[in-house]
């Protein structure tokens, strides 16, 4: 039984919680609201109440379970090793089955789950976005109307040409040391093609052949995290088919959440489906974040040169605590001559974006971001490096609104910029 079959699958996890409350010390949402339902311990009690039949799956309950960043901070610090994220996902799945999704989420997810239609829709939207958004400066827009986004929110424009349409499917170098398949993720494809281009350049510079399968689409994580497992099933299957059929040494991701989808969620989701469970695990075993892969190659710092540059690094939740990629990005950043790494006080604290959470709870999301901005300011760094497009978007939003001068880039973009032209 998987977590996507409901709460019974996580009964042991629920029982393991000894209610010590240690999660209070690390939960960003609890620290803002200081209310027990916000913290893991409270939500676990609610999940137990549902299991015991003491609580009905109400809208109110769905709202309580929506109030979680799935930043995994509680999981990392839980003395009893409770996998809180699994309980949250199981509960959300039950609640979504019973109560359905809010309209805006349902619309988006239905779109995401129909790859061809989605691609067409985004491309059309890219042409028309000027009607709904005004340009602030290159790479930054603000909504003209409240279209499900806060008016003050700064977002990147949709790329006129998505990344996967900009590049060929296969890229070969002379005497390759490895071949990888690149899963780009939606944000890189439609919002930040420069992250995709950077990945390609850096991999090629390291002598790696890259395949960017045309037929890839959304990983489905946003849907799974919102409890709509049934909608994501086909997405998972098609990716397992697609990437399972490619001869590659590794599958590269540039977003911790996409990586998590392949590595942890697909095997869980496809666990009981005969032909898929095995292959899902094989595909999962090949998933590596770009920094992990480069670090293993090994990374060649001689390819890069920085004019004195002071950078800091924000650790994305799903990359760090989710995939366990903590040291590799730091190792890479610090090994480039000229780069001066100035650590954040709490590098691993959630920035507050949390995917669709920032759509539905923007105020709280921004409140959490405010702490991160203060931390960034304290480092004195000029550039914020991070390993996740969503964090990048959120940090840029905050820095712009607060009129702070720091810029944000993905780790691999930093590398591509510092790559010495040969």
């Amino acid at each position, binding site marked *: 039984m998987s977590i996507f079959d409901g709460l019974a699958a996580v009964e042991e996890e629920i*029982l393991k919680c*000894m209610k010590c409350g*240690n999660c209070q010390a690390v939960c960003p949402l609890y620290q803002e609201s*200081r*209310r027990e339902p916000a913290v893991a311990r*409270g939500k676990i*009690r609610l999940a137990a109440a549902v299991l015991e039949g003491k609580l009905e799956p109400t809208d109110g309950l769905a709202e309580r379970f929506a109030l979680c960043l799935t930043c995994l901070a509680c999981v990392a610090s839980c*003395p009893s*090793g409770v996998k809180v994220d699994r309980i949250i996902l199981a509960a959300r799945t039950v609640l979504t089955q019973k109560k359905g999704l809010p309209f805006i989420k349902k619309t988006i997810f239905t779109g995401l789950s129909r790859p061809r239609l989605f691609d067409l829709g985004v491309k059309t939207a890219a042409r028309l976005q000027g009607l709904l958004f005004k340009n602030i400066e290159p790479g930054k827009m603000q909504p003209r109307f409240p279209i499900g986004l806060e008016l003050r929110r700064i977002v990147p424009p949709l790329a006129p040409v998505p990344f996967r349409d900009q590049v060929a499917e296969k890229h070969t170098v002379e005497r390759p040391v490895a071949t990888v398949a690149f899963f780009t993720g939606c944000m890189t494809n439609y919002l930040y093609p420069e992250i995709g281009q950077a990945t390609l350049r850096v991999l090629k510079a390291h002598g790696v052949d890259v395949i960017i399968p045309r037929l890839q689409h959304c990983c489905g994580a946003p849907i799974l995290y919102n409890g709509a497992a049934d909608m994501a099933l086909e997405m998972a299957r098609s990716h397992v088919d697609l990437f399972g059929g490619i001869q590659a040494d590794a599958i590269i991701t540039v977003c911790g959440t996409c990586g998590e989808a392949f590595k942890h969620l697909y095997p869980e989701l496809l666990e009981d489906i005969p032909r898929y469970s095995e292959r899902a695990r094989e595909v999962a075993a090949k998933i590596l974040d770009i920094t992990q892969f480069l670090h293993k190659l090994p990374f060649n710092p001689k390819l890069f040169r920085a004019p004195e540059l002071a950078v800091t690094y924000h650790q994305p939740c799903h990359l760090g605590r989710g995939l366990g990629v903590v040291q590799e990005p730091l190792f890479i950043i610090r090994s480039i001559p000229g780069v001066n790494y100035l650590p954040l006080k709490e590098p691993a604290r959630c920035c507050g974006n949390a995917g669709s959470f920032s759509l539905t709870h923007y105020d709280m999301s921004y409140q959490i971001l405010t702490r991160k901005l203060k931390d960034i300011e304290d480092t004195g760094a000029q550039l914020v490096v991070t390993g996740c497009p969503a964090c990048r978007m959120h940090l840029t939003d905050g820095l712009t609104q607060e009129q702070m001068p720091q810029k944000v880039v993905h780790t691999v973009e930093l590398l591509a910029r510092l790559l010495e032209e040969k």
Partner: protein
Amino acid sequence: MSVAQAIEALRRELGKNNVITATEDLFCYSYDATADLPEQTPDVVVTPENVDQVVKVVKIARQFRLPIYPRGSGTNLSGGTVPIKGGIVLSTLKMNRILEIDPSNLTATVQPGVIIQDLNNAVAPYGLIYPPDPGTVATATMGGSVAECSGGLRGLKYGVTRHYVMGLELVLADGEVIRYGGKTVKNVTGYDLVRLFTGSEGTLGIITEIIVRLIPAPQARETMLAGFSRLADAGNAVADIIGQKVIPATLEIMDRVTVETVENFAHVGLPTDVEAILLIEVDGIPEVVKSEAAAVRQVIAKNGGWVKTAENDEEREKLWSARRAALPALARRKPTTILEDATVPRSKITDMLLAVEDIGKRYNLVIGTFGHAGDGNLHPTILADARDEEEMERVRAAVEEIFRAALSLGGTLSGEHGIGIAKKQFLPWEMGNPGVQVLKKIKQALDPDNLLNPGKMVDLT
């Protein structure tokens, strides 16, 4: 007069943002960190922002005869915050300002919802510390820890919460606001009510402001790990260290069950061929630290143990992480963790360790014992599964025997976790019925209508 009217009144006086009534939310205030206790949801949760609002809550509670259950972070281990009679849970978490740090008087004034660690962070730049450090420093509130008179790892040398509380502001059950004590080191004006309210578990008044004593941070420290092949040797070493007139800041013990479990789960490099280990830290002026550490090493050798000294911060941190992993690691072995708190005079620590070991064997239970050996405060931790009713019966019987053992050695039911619901029925064992009567008279005098945290510590009927 109904609960609905009371809620109406609370909303009017506190604003609707400070009054929580959704069923889903109330469930999250039905428990604390205590295992194996009944849970109960309150009728309403209030989050007052200042003392005036606390007074209003008390007045409304009086008018509508609803009990009030004060609550900080809900991390206590005696059922102190479970609203067993329904009514109002009063959360102090919105009263979380550090009002003043006064380096010339070495005091800090805080609201009850301040987290202990936040106070420590705030006074660190002054070179000061607030020593009481329960395992929950990062989560527990000042109000909750004063109400429980929490102890912690440094009790032996630095004492417990009551040794640092100098003044209190409280709202009494009749709605009056009173202040006792203050910033003076000396104060014998009237009965020592600051001490009475410290450790009163929310049954006598609601704490709304606390003045605490701070001390200079120690200049140097040395941390050592000692291993013993017999449990009794470890216990005797504890007594001997103190016999040598060395008072370590920390003197912690972990028995074999705990050590093995920690090593299995956390892999911190602990030896697993021991019956017990001690973690010892001496601190103070550098020269004194040196000579005390030397004395400690001698005592350990004399008792047949080996010792390893942390050479740098990294090694020290490693030893500490082993100690911090004790409860977590134990908690992972089985779903239900019952953490006991029986305490004996430290000269009896060996007897108590052996008694617990024996009780575990007789009831066929896994008990890991660790704790603050230096002050006689052990935490025998019973690992069980709440779904196994037969096993839970054995757990309850074993807990009673642990209490009896501690009392027969001249100890106490609870060193630092409090009485609450969990140990209420055992009070007569320690203080006799006449002793319990005195508690009741105090409760009767201050809260005749039994409005404040009813059902905890003593029952009025």
